[in-house]
């Protein structure tokens, strides 16, 4: 399958690089179909990437744990005795039995149901039943090799990421220039975010990339989310792309992370605030999603001038991390109890299961300091707009599954997905954020950067 030096090659002789045409900016639809490509992705991407598993607030006390998938592997996310967090493979080192059989719980140790080997909250091998009679001193001598397989961990905005590859780049390097944007959105207040309970989990009959690459696609709002326009929650002026969220700032970084920010300056005129108002005045008048005036007052303690300006003028809407995470923060969409407005605050993760199937997890984020009414408003607006029953996301699922249906056909698989709408680098004056910045109409630039990263890690 692999030809050294010339990139990854599939069994029919086609190279991965042939599937991603960097000149024409087109991607063969075959990438969403082939089992061979999928297997390569699992090995080259998911077994070595930083993947989000849980939020710290799901496991507040030592011994609290949740069970999740990191890539294809079942794992435990555990709060250890010293308050730190460990991510361990949920497979017993004796013969591979599933160690923990519940999805959430509290335990001081993890005991294997098969022969009873026991492991600590930190994954250390503690002992085996009848150890002396069964093994004599053998296990004591090899105990260091019997600890559970652990992953490296990193935390951002309370979200716990893990990476199975201990040689992989460290978490900060992985975030790169994107950290500046993420921290502005997720670490803006003194106490930060928590999640409301465990995530929704659901299956999607589509290839995982159809979600991952869509994150920077502002263009689909008008057609796919037409009903949001009809319901008065998007596209107040049908002919104005800005009102469909298609205008703002897109960003991509070499790591394949993509960001869409919506220009909210329009909102200031509604709030009676001129564009000459200070950043603090603008933030106080129109707090970014999920925040209130008291929280805005904490921003200067946690954010730079440039980050504050980002939140005031072009708050991040969709923050996609390559390959399997995004954060979504939106204000002013419908579906709250009064049919009015509220914040939609989401963290998502996706786990590929097969070329045409992935599992999706959706958490609701809320500021720890949110007063009860804001917490409840966030919870309800979020679940009504996003996640499995969310009326915005219901329609996105149709596009992902619709493309997947197309690529079942060999003729359709020979077609390409096209990304020629190019804006080029447009960096506003005094913009502090790093990466490649595309200010203006949300064109294909950031999405294409995602595919460039994909090609790179796939060895194209």
């Amino acid at each position: 399958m692999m030809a050294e030096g010339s990139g990854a090659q599939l069994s029919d002789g086609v190279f991965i690089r042939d599937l991603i045409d960097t000149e024409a900016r087109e991607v063969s639809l075959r990438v969403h179909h082939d089992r061979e490509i999928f297997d390569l992705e699992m090995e080259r991407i998911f077994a070595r990437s930083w993947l989000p598993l849980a939020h710290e607030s799901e496991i507040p006390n030592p011994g609290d744990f949740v069970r999740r998938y990191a890539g294809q592997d079942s794992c435990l996310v555990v709060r250890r005795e010293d308050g730190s967090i460990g991510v361990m493979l949920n497979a017993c080192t004796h013969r591979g039995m599933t160690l923990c059989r519940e999805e959430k719980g509290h335990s001081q140790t993890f005991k294997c149901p098969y022969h009873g080997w026991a492991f600590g909250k930190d994954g250390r091998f503690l002992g085996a039943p009848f150890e002396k009679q069964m093994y004599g001193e053998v296990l004591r001598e090899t105990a260091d090799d019997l600890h559970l397989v652990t992953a490296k961990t990193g935390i951002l905005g309370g979200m716990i990421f893990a990476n199975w590859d201990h040689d992989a780049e460290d978490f900060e390097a992985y975030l790169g220039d994107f950290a500046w944007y993420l921290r502005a959105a997720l670490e803006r207040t003194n106490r930060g975010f928590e999640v409301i309970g465990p995530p929704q989990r659901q299956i999607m009959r589509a290839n995982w990339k159809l979600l991952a690459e869509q994150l920077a696609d502002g263009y689909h709002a008008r057609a796919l989310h037409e009903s949001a326009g009809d319901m008065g929650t998007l596209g107040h002026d049908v002919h104005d792309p800005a009102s469909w969220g298609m205008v703002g700032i897109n960003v991509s970084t070499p790591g394949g992370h993509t960001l869409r920010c919506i220009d909210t300056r329009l909102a200031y005129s509604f709030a009676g605030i001129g564009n000459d108002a200070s950043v603090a005045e603008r933030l106080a008048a129109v707090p970014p999603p999920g925040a209130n005036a008291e929280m805005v007052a904490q921003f200067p303690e946690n954010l730079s001038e440039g980050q504050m300006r980002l939140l005031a003028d072009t708050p991040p809407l969709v923050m996609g991390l390559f390959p399997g995470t995004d954060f979504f923060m939106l204000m002013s969409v419908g579906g709250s109890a009064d049919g009015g407005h509220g914040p939609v605050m989401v963290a998502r993760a996706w786990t590929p299961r097969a070329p045409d199937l992935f599992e999706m997890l959706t958490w609701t984020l809320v500021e720890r300091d949110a007063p009860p009414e804001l917490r409840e408003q966030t919870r309800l607006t979020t679940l009504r707009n996003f996640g499995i029953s969310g009326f915005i996301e219901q329609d996105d699922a149709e596009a992902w599954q619709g493309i997947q249906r197309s690529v079942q056909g060999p003729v359709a698989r020979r077609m390409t997905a096209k990304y020629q709408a190019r804006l080029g680098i447009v960096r506003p004056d005094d913009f502090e954020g790093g990466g490649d910045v595309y200010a203006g109409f949300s064109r294909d630039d950031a999405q294409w950067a995602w595919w460039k990263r994909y090609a790179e890690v796939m060895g194209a």
Partner: protein
Amino acid sequence: MNETMTAGQTATAFAAGRRLRAAEPRFLEILEFLWEEAALLDSDDLPGWRDLLDEEIRYRMPVCLTRRRGSGESFETEAMHFDEDLASLQFRIRRFVETQAWAADPPSRARRFVTGIRIWEGRGKDSYDVASSVLVVRTMDDDFRTDLVTAERRDRVRFSGEGAARLVERTIICDQTTIGTHNLAIFL
């Protein structure tokens, strides 16, 4: 019925009242109500379904988790798949019926098999606690594969002065912790 909604929920103990015998007239009326409701949803008559909802409807589907026996915490009280009142249900229905909602156009065909019905006298006059099992078989487009969702439903049904049954509260406790369908653009 060993787990009940607590923390911030309006529900009090479910199924605490006298259990109705299957031959009692009220049992049969409620049985007919559930059949009627399922038929309306199966035939995609969403405005018709809306007419069976009480003004005070609370419609919830908590996130469920696999837990150890006896943990008493197999579903969540705050994390939800659905948490609706009349306004938000009407919003959803209006979207499906009146706008270009791709998730429901063409509509998927979902058939609801309602069984295992048990009924108790509830709080207040003419109010009943109703437990049922539902199997939803969902078919999309020309795909022969079907999505299956199974759940226990814990309802409160109230009879109005004119004797018409209305759904006041529904809690859907799904058996799948990973929901086996791509969206919940359907009602259960």
